[in-house]
């Protein structure tokens, strides 16, 4: 039981890597930095693997396995241990995060080859791994919050990695600030949580919650507040705006942080809190609605984007929407499952996109690509697989996860046909814009200057992760293949215990086995058909008659421009929030409070001190004996005082 007793090792490894690279890496050769970064992360992954082995030996009564290392904060009743918790959910997250993280580290060694600040990049990356693992393994919400903010920080650092580029720096700031809005809610949620349950430890909270009546206002508000945090972190409506801009960061970062891991933290949090959420139906409805809305909304924006990474970004947002939809309709397992598969194929998509960009020398505009199929076959095939996966075509990973979510949206305990419809529509759009991406990038004639740019396949260390992820996004789904599709639903059975409480609460669905199966078959069939339709539309538009899109754009000028400008959301925010804030900060806080009051006070103090010093320095005769005498005078005074006090005490 090495690792069960020493969970901290898993955290320590990436942290050590970050520290070493950050402190000493500056003048090291790339190879050294690589070995440290990749070494630490791979070790972490191995540790996780070992942990899983040991975990599998645990008896059901020993789960969740909680290990408290030291008391971090104590203030009155408020007590926070630095405690780590391992249960099935944690295991899933750990595996996903550490594995994808490792692959992306390897990929980065190739992608960042020619970039400056190499060591800095990997140090940040490792740090991110550390915080993400902390977030996942936290046994109480405060430690989780540490991880939560930590990943935010790393995201900021990495988005603004090329901080000389203004857009990048701004994007970093934007990501940080917008997320902060959500975190505000999250923080309040935490406080409310403590105020309600008198503890921050998950175990105790859940225990207490199980006595708590369903649907009380306080519970609902807690869940909503926590969900606000999730909205910010996982880029849901209305706080999604930072994610597309975050694409300014290096592609591996987009893959790791803004597709595979960090942005899914919100989903994880909601799933982790399922005993609370399942007790607050209203909150769950809110989650579901926001999820579905985001899924559809950002998919629409994705339709018309031309920057390959932007498209993927919006697709990420919409997929996250799916996950929340899943959680919202009580299919937490499905949500988490989609989280995992999404980590695989979306990570793959980003990496492949990165490989494409790398191939044609940093060009990101899809209109300047095309015909790359032959040039970079491996990238092409892997990306195609990923696309099939995300559009939810069997037998790829996305099919199962998406299908589940949709099924439970339609027939689950919290079924809601409207949400189902929206989800389905989103699926259609998804498959359309994904194939649009594929076609624009890989098919047709080359729209870039063949003489200047010589498209070339990426180096091994970039391709290997692609292939591995491709395999995963192909077979990854079979873990949760439901019975009637000839699978044994391992995933649900595995996660079962975690969501037991939630499932117990869920209203029973009255439907007999056979009917359920037929329905499920029909639904999945429908989903596939939808996906295919999307595919054919994309094929028609971009292969068969490439003129159509422009004609369409002409005829639907209004909507098109609206979409192209992402519903002008950024502009609206700018006008409604940023500008006023800026004005207040400048005139009131800066010139008023800061310069006027604070600086004034400080300078005043300084002036007084200087004057007084001028007078007092006469005492500084430089004769130590005089000083000694002054000391004695002081002593006499103090003793006299003591004597006085003594009398008072007597």
């Amino acid at each position: 039981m090495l690792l069960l007793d020493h969970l901290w090792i898993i955290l320590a490894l990436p942290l050590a890597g970050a520290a070493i690279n950050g402190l000493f890496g500056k003048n090291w050769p790339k190879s050294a930095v690589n070995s440290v970064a990749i070494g630490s992360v791979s070790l972490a992954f191995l540790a996780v693997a070992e942990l899983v082995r040991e975990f599998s030996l645990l008896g059901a009564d020993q789960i969740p396995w909680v290990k408290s290392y030291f008391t971090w904060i104590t203030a009155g009743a408020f007590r926070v241990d630095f405690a780590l918790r391992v249960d099935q959910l944690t295991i899933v997250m750990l595996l996903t995060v550490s594995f994808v993280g490792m692959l992306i580290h390897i990929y980065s060694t190739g992608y960042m080859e020619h970039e400056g600040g190499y060591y800095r990049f990997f140090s940040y990356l490792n740090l991110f791994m550390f915080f993400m693992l902390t977030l996942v393994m936290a046994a109480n919400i405060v430690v989780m919050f540490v991880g939560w903010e930590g990943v935010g920080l790393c995201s900021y650092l990495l988005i603004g990695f090329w901080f000389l580029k203004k857009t990048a720096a701004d994007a970093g700031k934007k990501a940080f600030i917008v997320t902060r809005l959500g975190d505000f809610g999250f923080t309040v949620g935490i406080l409310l949580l403590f105020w309600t349950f008198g503890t921050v430890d998950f175990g105790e909270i859940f225990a207490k919650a199980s006595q708590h009546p369903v649907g009380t206002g306080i519970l609902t508000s807690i869940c909503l507040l926590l969900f606000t945090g999730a909205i910010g972190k996982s880029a849901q409506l209305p706080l999604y705006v930072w994610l597309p801009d975050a694409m300014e960061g290096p592609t591996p970062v987009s893959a790791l942080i803004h597709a595979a891991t960090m942005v899914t933290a919100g989903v994880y949090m909601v799933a982790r809190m399922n005993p609370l959420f399942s007790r607050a139906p209203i909150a769950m409805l809110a989650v579901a609605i926001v999820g579905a809305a985001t899924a559809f909304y950002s998919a629409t924006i994705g339709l018309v984007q031309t920057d390959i990474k932007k498209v993927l970004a919006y697709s990420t947002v919409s997929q996250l929407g799916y996950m929340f939809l899943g959680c919202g309709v009580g299919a937490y397992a499905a949500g988490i499952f989609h989280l995992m598969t999404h980590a695989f194929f979306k990570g793959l998509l980003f990496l492949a996109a990165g490989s494409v960009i790398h191939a044609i020398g940093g060009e990101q505009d899809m209109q300047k690509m095309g015909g790359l199929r032959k040039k970079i076959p491996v990238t092409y095939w892997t990306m195609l697989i990923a696309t099939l996966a995300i559009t939810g075509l069997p037998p790829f990973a996305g099919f199962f996860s998406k299908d589940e979510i949709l099924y439970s949206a339609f027939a689950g305990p919290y079924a809601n046909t409207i949400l189902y419809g929206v989800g389905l529509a989103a699926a259609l759009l998804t498959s359309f814009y994904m194939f649009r991406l594929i076609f624009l990038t890989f098919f047709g004639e080359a729209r870039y200057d063949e003489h200047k740019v010589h498209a070339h396949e990426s180096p091994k260390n970039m391709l290997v992760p692609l292939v591995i992820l491709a395999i995963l996004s192909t077979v990854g789904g079979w873990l949760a293949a439901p019975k009637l599709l000839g699978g044994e639903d391992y995933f649900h059975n595995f996660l079962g215990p975690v969501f037991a409480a939630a499932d117990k609460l869920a209203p029973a669905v009255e439907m007999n086995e056979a009917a359920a199966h037929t329905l499920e078959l029909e639904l999945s069939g429908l989903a596939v058909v939808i996906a295919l339709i999307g595919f054919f539309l994309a094929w028609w538009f971009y292969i068969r008659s490439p003129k159509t899109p422009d004609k369409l754009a002409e005829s639907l000028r209004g909507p098109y421009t609206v979409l192209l400008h992402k519903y002008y959301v950024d502009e609206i925010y700018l006008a409604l929030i940023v500008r006023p804030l800026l004005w207040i900060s400048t005139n009131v806080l800066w010139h008023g409070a800061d310069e006027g009051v604070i600086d004034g006070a400080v300078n005043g103090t300084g002036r007084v001190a200087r004057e007084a010093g001028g007078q007092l320095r006469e005492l500084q005769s430089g004769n130590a004996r005089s000083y000694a005498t002054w000391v004695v005078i002081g002593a006499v005074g103090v003793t006299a005082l003591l004597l006085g006090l003594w009398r008072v005490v007597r």
Partner: protein
Amino acid sequence: MTAVPISYYLVLSAVLFGLGVVAFVFKRNIITIFMAIELMLNAVNLAFVAFARAHNQLDGLVFVFFVIVVAAAEAAVGLAIVITIVQNRESLNIERINLLKF
């Protein structure tokens, strides 16, 4: 065999401390001033031990121990400083070493 009352020891320590203070103010030789400090420390130690005896608790003795250790360190560094001072200024008289002023 009756024991000596604690207050006797305390008064003695007070007296020694006072004398230490006087020495501290009145001696001009840096080394001697150092000794005055040591004398005060000793007085304090006596008080510590006396109190330890009064309450029959060993902690007082531990403090004495620490005081002695610190005194040793202080003497080592202080005397090194004295040596350097003398090497630079050819005088042990503290009143001649008066650069430390406005």
